[in-house]
């Protein structure tokens, strides 16, 4: 270990922060000459909150696709890099749009609202283990208000809903005044946290049990943020990665769900490629407004409640096909990005799915799930019995293990998912 590390370690100890030190060099800057260092594994989880029309999403028959579904058709040859999984569900997550909150957490009964408390999401669970290896432990994105990512205490991790500021955070060095301000902000922040931590400590002693739980939670939030900020101080000494594209600009049309999705996917590609983070969640738009897609005259939400009306279903298909195309373009980019002797897609698991199996009646059974990349053996339809399915969390455990995290449990899992082989 070199002396720089020693100093950092000493500094962090003195700041009251004890943690695994980040490997500050991005893996890309390291040489592969020895052939031993492997590109890191990443995970992207995408949720489209209004379901996917099941007859178009799921292929007929099990195993290797003989007759790909119309949506898989839209992915072209890339469907060989995907596995479609049918039948899965989160046990104890009932019919409602609120099931979105449990999509990556498997927390029970979000539909009851009263008394519902969320738990840690897949990405944040992973970030606790591997988040310190990149400039950003994780990235939560959403094309609108909400978020798929939740902390262990059940608090929402606020997601970015516009790509331009994220692009700036990831890749732009900033003007001198901004850099200066950012550095000061970091130092101010650490001082502030130091001050309020003591306040919380003092206050906690005087409180009753239930109140003290609240202050304890606040107190540990301070500690966690202190650690994160100490790490970002170290990262801020490293130049940000350079990307050879014009900065991403925001799409200000709230109805343009495909346009917004494309921008977010472009951003994710860049973030993965530069190893800025290895864990990303993206919640797509479920807008009530009419999207600018040829032949579509009704809002997406309205269409998802098609009531078997054939006109609505045909419009819904158009919207969802556009979504699949955008996904296909994204996967193509990942596949054409070389990493050592593999591709970025080989090293990135892309989960694409929905918290609703049938949005027309808010059913949370038989969720549409697609897993792409990550070096799995793909090109198949894994069909489970929707009336007695394994928990979706089993797939999550499989994904966590693929990330190199030693765990055999997540959410409501009962094991790993049979049929997903590397």
């Amino acid at each position, binding site marked *: 270990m070199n002396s720089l590390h020693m100093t950092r370690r000493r500094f962090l100890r003195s700041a009251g922060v004890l943690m695994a030190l980040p490997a500050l060099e991005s893996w890309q800057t390291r040489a592969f000459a020895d052939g031993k260092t492997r590109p890191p594994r990443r995970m992207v989880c995408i949720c489209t909150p209004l379901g996917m029309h099941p007859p178009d999403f799921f292929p007929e028959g099990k195993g290797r696709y003989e007759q790909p579904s119309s949506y898989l058709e839209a992915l072209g040859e890339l469907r060989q890099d995907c596995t479609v999984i049918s039948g899965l569900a989160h046990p104890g997550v*009932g*019919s409602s749009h609120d099931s979105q909150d449990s999509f990556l957490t498997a927390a029970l009964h979000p539909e*009851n*609202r*009263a*008394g*519902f408390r*969320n738990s840690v999401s897949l990405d944040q669970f992973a970030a606790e283990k591997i988040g310190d290896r990149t400039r950003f432990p994780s990235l939560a994105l959403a094309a609108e208000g909400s*978020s798929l990512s939740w*902390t262990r*205490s059940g*608090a*929402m*991790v*606020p997601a970015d809903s516009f790509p*331009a500021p994220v692009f700036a955070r990831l890749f732009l060095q900033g003007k*001198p*005044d901004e*850099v*200066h301000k950012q550095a000061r902000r970091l*130092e*101010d*922040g650490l*001082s*502030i*946290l*130091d*001050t*309020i931590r*003591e*306040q*919380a400590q003092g206050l906690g002693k005087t409180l*009753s*049990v239930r*109140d003290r739980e*609240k*202050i304890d*939670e*606040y107190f540990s*939030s*301070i500690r*966690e*943020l202190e650690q*994160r900020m100490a790490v970002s101080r170290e990262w801020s000494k490293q130049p940000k990665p350079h990307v050879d594209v014009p900065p991403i600009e925001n799409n*200000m049309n*709230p109805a343009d769900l495909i346009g917004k999705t494309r921008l977010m996917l472009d951003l994710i590609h860049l973030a993965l490629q530069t190893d800025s983070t290895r864990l990303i969640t993206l919640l797509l738009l479920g807008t*009530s*407004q009419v999207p600018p897609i040829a032949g579509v005259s009704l809002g997406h*939400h*309205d269409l998802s*409640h098609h*009531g*078997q*009306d054939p*006109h*609505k279903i045909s419009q819904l298909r158009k919207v969802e096909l556009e979504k699949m195309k955008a996904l296909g373009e994204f996967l193509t980019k990942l596949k054409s990005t070389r990493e050592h002797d593999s591709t970025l897609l080989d090293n990135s698991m892309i989960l694409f799915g929905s918290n609703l199996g049938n949005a*027309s*009646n808010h*059913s949370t*059974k038989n969720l549409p799930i697609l897993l792409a990349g990550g070096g799995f053996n793909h090109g198949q339809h894994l069909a489970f019995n929707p009336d007695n399915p394994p928990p979706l969390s089993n797939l999550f455990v499989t994904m966590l293990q693929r990330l190199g995290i030693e765990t055999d449990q997540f959410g409501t899992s009962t094991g790993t998912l049979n049929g997903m082989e590397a």
Partner: protein
Amino acid sequence: MNPPLITALVLISFVLGDSVLTAADPPSSAVTILFELHCMECHRDESPKGNVSLEPLLHGQRDVALWQNVLAKIETGEMPPKPKPGLTVEERQIASDWLFTLVSAEKQMQRNIEGRVVLRRLNRVEYENTLRDLLGVSVRVRELLPQDASSAGFDNVGEALHSSSFLLARYLEAGEAALEQAIANGTQPRVKREHVTLEAAYQVKQNSENVFRKGDGGRITMFSSSPWQAATMFWIEQRGRYRFRLSVQADQSNGRPVVFSTHIGGGGGGPQPELVGYFDAPADAPKVIEFESFMEPRMSMTIRPYGLAPSSEIAKAGPQAWAGPGLAVDWIEMEGPLNDVWPPESHHRIFGGLKQIAVKLPSGNEMLEVQSNDAVTDTKRIIEGFARNAFRRPISEDELAPFIAMVEKRRAAGSSFEQAVRAGLVAVMTSPQFLFLRETPGRLDDFAIASRLSYFFWSSTPDEDLLTLAEKGQLHDQATLHAQVDRLLQSPKSAAFTEHFTGQWLRLREIDFTEPSMQLYPEFDDMLKVSMLREVRLFFDELLLKDLPLTNFLASDFSMLNGRLAKHYGIAGVDGWTFQRVKLPPDSHRGGVLTMAAILKITANGTNTSPVIRGAYVLDRIMGMPPKPPPPDAGSIEPDTRGSTTIRQQLARHRQIESCGSCHIKIDPLGFSLENFDVIGGWREYYRSTGNGKPVEIDGKKMRWLQGPAIDAGDVMADGRKIGNVDELKQILLDDSDVFGRALTIRLLTYGTGGQVEAVDQREVTAILNQAKARKWGFRSLLHEIVTSPLFLEK
């Protein structure tokens, strides 16, 4: 720890610990007989109804949850269920006295140590409003913070308000952003004043379709409501508050007003144009309309007439020959950024008269920063002044010291005076004393009461008056409390109460969850949606300010309507945007919140209605008896708008299944009685269909939907009573208005204190209800009773 306290704690753990006590006193014979007579037929150990056996109760086993559950069911009259004979007044008293003694002994013990309300963190609305009032400038920081979770139906309930490192990071950002808006670091922006005619709008200049009529003295008349022919003008360079004035008159409108809306927005990368509001242009004489808006650089202002012809028709006839109504605009003025003094008041409030000097930034640019000749004294004065208000109670030197020390440390590390002080202020805004509403178990002190009052009615921090009363120790006094309720409700800040209470109680926040299908409901538009929300809020305010009986929420002979809603409801004689109190015709079926379009829209999706959703809404929101969630594998009805099966046929199948039927027999009849209201709250005799049915013409125009099956709103309730339509539903609710009174009171208490109301509290709720009833159910009287109840005055 002193010995008596230790004894007390041991005692408490003895009583509350699950393993220690397993038995309570068995019930008296009177109680046993009563339960045998009314309850045990259904609630024995073997296959008890609702999976609730009352045997443990009668055997004297300790089961606090069961006691509470049974107590609530008896107090609310939910059990024994109709048509079984109910308890006599005397029986109910005996049963509830016994249970109440059991539960309250347990609860009281817990309450003494814990209180009812869990430590509340400010939610993001409260946080923003609090900073607005502390800093004296309207700050927009809400969007920086993540959405808050809710519990017991409200997002200000302590249990649900969690912290996370992400939230804290956002607090740091939001605190800084708020200071950025309060503190001036530049010279006073030059005020720009413009006085223009509509010619300044590029749509008029280009006149691409020839739809504007030019008159004398610069007057230009707009005839089209097509969005691309709205008039957009002005180009803002400096952010700040701007005042807009425009002189308008309705033209060729047969004496009726012409409605128009104004919007601000646009600009590259800026937000979408945002509605400022709707206005009336009167027919008889020009009127000057004035409004103020906060503008960002590159924003513009847009004027759009409502409900006029599409541009193609006007272009065809030519604007000179066009005989339809129009909006005449004489002139438009813009002035801003508005700053009465510089640096602005908010800056002065923090720094007082400290001088600013120019400092150099790394880029070489300059900005102004506050300087101090006596940094130690000034720091103390600024931090102390801010923290005193921010903490909502007196603070000690010890409490203050760490914040001051921090500022000194930042300065020692090289920060400038202003930068260090700013960091100190952000520390105060992120501290637990600021973010949490601290209350100690038992009777609240006056400062805690001041905060309860202000966060109840203003969603914001107590003002000087409240803090002064608290300091004098007068906030326990009943007359003072009543007077303060009245004062707080008079303030414009009480709009927060109306918005956030109705937003959650009646679910108005969900108004945009679905967009009505354009094919089925072409008459739906933005003005209708905005008007719907306004009706509910104005109605709520009307009951509140005039202290009208809260039974008006169930049924009323008036509502607050404007022209758009009146047309929607088929009520003649109301024109334009302006709202007024309108006496409802006897056959209108309207009156009371359940017949308001907003509620009917929220309880439907964009294409069809479901009696299940609406029935559950009535049970939950109006009667306070939320139905149990459906069993996990129940799924829901697959809607069908093709006109082949009706919802009644689908539900009939549903009700035959026993596991569904036992709840649905309570839910569905209530919902069916609202079936005459479509998804946007219009009255209907037939469903609209997209598949089968008869073609329909309205005003000579063929509709894109068909007339489907006829509506049948009748049903039979679980107790055998029939409901034929919505009027009968209202009567049934009125007959039992205590049920609604209790439900509303519990909601108000939950929202007003940020803590759940439990079964053990039902007694106090009953006391409030009795008082309110004696005051003729006046809505404001109810609030008076609430704030003087122990439920409000104790933690």
